[in-house]
């Protein structure tokens, strides 16, 4: 009566495909078009504008272009991704300050890097584990993103400016523009 059988694995497997190397970094930021991809979360646009202002004050950036995802909880849709990739030399995307959008912001950065566009994904530091878990699910476990001090949504413009000052060296390093 005793029949010994193998136990079954109940998990889904990651179907992730795609590379895990970064897009080539430009030799200089001079004249480049930088995309600012907002995810609609409160203060995302303000945060991106502050980062843009800092970059503009340091480098001879060509222009900034602003894009807005239609929903923060899932990665950028293919049409918008294609447009951003066609328009921009590099992209900054924000802000992953919730459970779904922290993961989605990292997924956006990975999608952009795989499409050949250097990307800076900005999440809040309360969501490091979620952001890293998404990088693993996407098959890019070492993907580097920027973590600003939590919270973001409830900050004033002055407080956001302070957050940007705190992470600016990391932003510059990720886009290959330190020095």
């Amino acid at each position, binding site marked *: 009566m005793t*029949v010994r*059988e*193998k*136990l*079954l*694995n*109940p*998990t*889904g*497997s*990651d*179907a*992730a495909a795609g590379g895990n190397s970064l897009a080539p970094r430009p030799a200089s930021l001079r004249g480049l078009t930088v995309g600012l991809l*907002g995810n*609609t*979360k*409160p*203060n995302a*646009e*303000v945060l991106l504008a502050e980062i843009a202002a800092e970059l503009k004050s340091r480098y001879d950036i060509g222009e900034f272009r602003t894009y*807005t995802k239609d*929903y*923060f*909880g*899932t*990665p950028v849709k293919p049409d918008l991704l294609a447009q951003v990739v066609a328009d921009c030399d590099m992209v900054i995307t924000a802000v992953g300050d*919730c*459970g*779904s*959008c*922290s*993961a*989605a912001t990292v*997924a956006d950065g990975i999608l952009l890097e795989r499409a050949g566009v250097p990307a800076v994904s900005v999440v809040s530091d309360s*969501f490091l*584990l*979620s952001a890293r*878990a*998404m990088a693993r*699910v*996407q*098959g890019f476990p070492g993907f580097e993103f920027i973590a600003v001090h939590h919270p973001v949504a*409830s900050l*004033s*413009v002055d407080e*956001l400016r302070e957050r940007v000052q705190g992470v600016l060296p990391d932003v510059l390093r990720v886009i290959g523009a330190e020095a």
Partner: protein
Amino acid sequence: MSAIIDEPLADAAEIRSAMEFYAEQEWTDGLPVVPVTESYLNEFLSATSRGPQEVLFAVSHLNRECTVRLAAINAAMAGCRPEYFPVVVAAWDAIAKEPYPKRGIWQSTTGTAPLLIVNGPVRGRIGLNSQGNVFGSGFRANATIGRAIRLTCINVFGLQPHQLDQATQGTLAKYSACIAENEEESPWAPLHVEYGLDPADSAVTALVIRSCLHIEARHTRAPEQLALDLANTIRRTGALIHETTSALVVLGPEHAQAFAEAGWGKDDVRQAIYDRAVNSRADLVAVGKEAISRHTRWRVPADHPDAIPDRASQGATPDQVPALISPNAILVAVAGARNAGVSTVMETFGVRGDAPSSIARVEQPGR
């Protein structure tokens, strides 16, 4: 001395070692799971006409999909009997129609849970509780069908807490949340009939829920008073993350019958709650929720960098702010015992203003 049971005998150490194995793999909600092998799985797969590789629900941004086979493995682990499996399949069909689960709500800080409401003859066939203690414990079908969804979220979709599940606090309903409607003591058409199915059909309605709030009103049978108690609960400012909210009202049979005796149908109940679920502008200013954020339309104070005026502030009565966008933001079901004036409001994350998109038929036995 405690009694000893003569039959059956068990190798308890071997059972424990299998359960410990699952726990070590983190293939659990924290409670022990039932070991599943291919022969036991086949009993579940035989209970449905759906093929084992058919995809029931996919979350593309997580690169994961739930097949019939994976849903069955997790249902068996949750403690379901094979004859429950058609309800689990219908639950996934319903969840797949919902707007929020595919958009990352299960990763959210909000900490929601899927709630299932079962209607029709399958309730009696498999022993689903629709009466006393309907949200509580003690009924295998309710407990394990709800748990089958949770285990699948954890195992198939990788929604481990502290990882991709970032719930700030979550809800107790994340262990299991499956009720049946008390059609027999409801004065109205069952939920699935209201949404176009036949009374002889069985169906599962899926909702995304957060809070579960009691309504105590044992003193009255006046429908206006009952509607006001429900409305005051629904409009509470703490619930207002979005511009407006939505709710499932689970009336105890006594409250449902009080409404019906006054000649009220479900639409009258919905309308009366909608009319009364209104906050004053001053109430919202006092908690800093008088405006909304430009894109997400989440409530924020008027001096927030992203603030724009809410919809009500541009209407004829800007100081009166409806908490609901329409009477249809309320679903009404009947469940529980007919023994007290007690009802429940479940706050939902979902469609705000339409009938639920998320109802699916349960396959009949002997299909």
